[in-house]
């Protein structure tokens, strides 16, 4: 820790509420709680609570694989250094379409035009995918993971305290400098009856996109610390003929208490990039997790 960092930390350490202020807050909290109804909240796996908006830029790869038919390429990193930390992971490239702004809903365009604050991200959450699609614009040719009660499902009925995390979120990427619309990202989370969970992340780029300096065209991917391990698995052909590139990132723990790792399915359909990030239950093997991911990919329509 250098002197500047230490000084910064020590200064913030000194910023705290007095005991009297804390006691007043406790009293107010109790009073306000009595006036406020208690909401229901569903409990979900930890990893899903943290939503990854991962557009990894300007990185260098070590191995390379490509599927020409869908122009989707996966670059696997065995060791990538960023800010002095070492990562393993992968990035995905190619095959996307840049959509005109006219393809998006008027509501979305109005929301983006109304936001001129680079510090604010427009990211409304919807209870259903249909509502999210309405906001996105029906001209955008999306396909959605259609779970059912026997395989994968999205529990949309119990939208309690964590609804912001577990609904269907639409996030607008606005350029920091110009505030133009670079793209739109949609996330939603599903669970399987066998205990797996998956975040679906869909990225739609716009024709007005102004790529940041040094962008190498990467659509997305994931980086983990060096103690993890990454492996590209066999591609998977979905029922609609789309080929998904599968990458597994193994947990750093020898005996994982949470999941053997995370399995990523990446594909492009009608110019839109999809990344499905699945994790298993505690006792699920890698093969079972991959099977679960395949089942979820099968449900896209």
């Amino acid at each position, binding site marked *: 820790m250098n002197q500047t960092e230490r*000084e910064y930390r020590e200064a913030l350490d000194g910023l705290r509420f007095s005991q009297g202020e804390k006691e007043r807050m406790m009293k107010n909290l109790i009073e306000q709680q009595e006036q406020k109804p208690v909401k229901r909240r569903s409990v979900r796996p930890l990893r899903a609570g943290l939503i990854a908006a991962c557009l990894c830029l300007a990185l260098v790869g070590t191995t390379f694989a490509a599927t020409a038919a869908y122009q989707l390429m996966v670059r696997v990193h065995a060791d990538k250094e960023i*800010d002095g930390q070492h990562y393993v992971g992968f990035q995905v490239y190619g095959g996307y379409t840049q959509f005109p702004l006219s393809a998006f809903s008027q509501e979305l365009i109005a929301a983006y035009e109304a936001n001129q604050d680079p510090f604010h991200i427009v990211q409304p959450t919807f209870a259903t995918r249909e509502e999210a699609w309405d906001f996105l614009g029906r001209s955008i040719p999306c396909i959605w993971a259609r779970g059912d009660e026997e395989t994968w499902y999205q529990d949309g009925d119990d939208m309690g305290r964590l609804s912001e995390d577990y609904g269907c979120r639409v996030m607008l990427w606005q350029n920091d400098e110009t505030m133009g619309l670079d793209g739109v990202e949609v996330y939603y989370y599903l669970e399987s009856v066998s205990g797996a969970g998956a975040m679906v992340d869909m990225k739609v780029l716009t024709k007005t996109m102004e790529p940041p300096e040094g962008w190498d065209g990467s659509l997305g991917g994931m980086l983990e610390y060096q103690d993890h391990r990454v492996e590209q698995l066999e591609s998977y052909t979905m029922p609609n003929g789309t080929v998904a590139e599968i990458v597994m990132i193994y947990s750093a723990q020898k005996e994982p208490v949470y999941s053997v790792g995370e399995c990523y399915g990446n594909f492009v359909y009608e110019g839109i990039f999809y990344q499905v990030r699945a994790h298993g239950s505690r006792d699920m093997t890698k093969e079972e997790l991959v099977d679960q991911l395949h089942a979820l990919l099968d449900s896209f329509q």
Partner: protein
Amino acid sequence: MKRDQQEAERLVNAYSDLILRLSYTYLRSTQDGEDVCQTVLLKLLTGEGEFQCPEHERAWVIRATINACKDELRAFRRKAVPLEEVRDQVAPEPPRSDVLETVMALPGKYREAIYLFYYEGYSVKEIGELTGRSEAAVSAHLSRGRKKLRDMLGGKEYEPN
């Protein structure tokens, strides 16, 4: 009722200072720290069920605080607080520190990245997850923030370990 009091006490002791520091980082003021704290902890208190682990709960608190601060920033543009009200508010005094004041002079997105990385100890990836930004954006904000800080501090180093 006793259980609620204990839970309120736990939440205030566990998170009030974190919320104060984070809201100060966003709002550049401690005046609204208590309001933000009240808003976030009330949401936490009135929810039902358990988080998977303390880290999950902490991550939720950070996200909720960031959202509450953004709401405050938007509200700032609309509301004018009566002077009497301002006088009545007693807020924790921000510490005097050249480094802290220099960090606070940086644009918000750089302050956010520096606070979460250097003070809270989150990785670039985790900050991306907490703030809804891409890892590349967080990396860029950290890097540019450090450079600006170095320039403003007259060449004093501020590099990661």
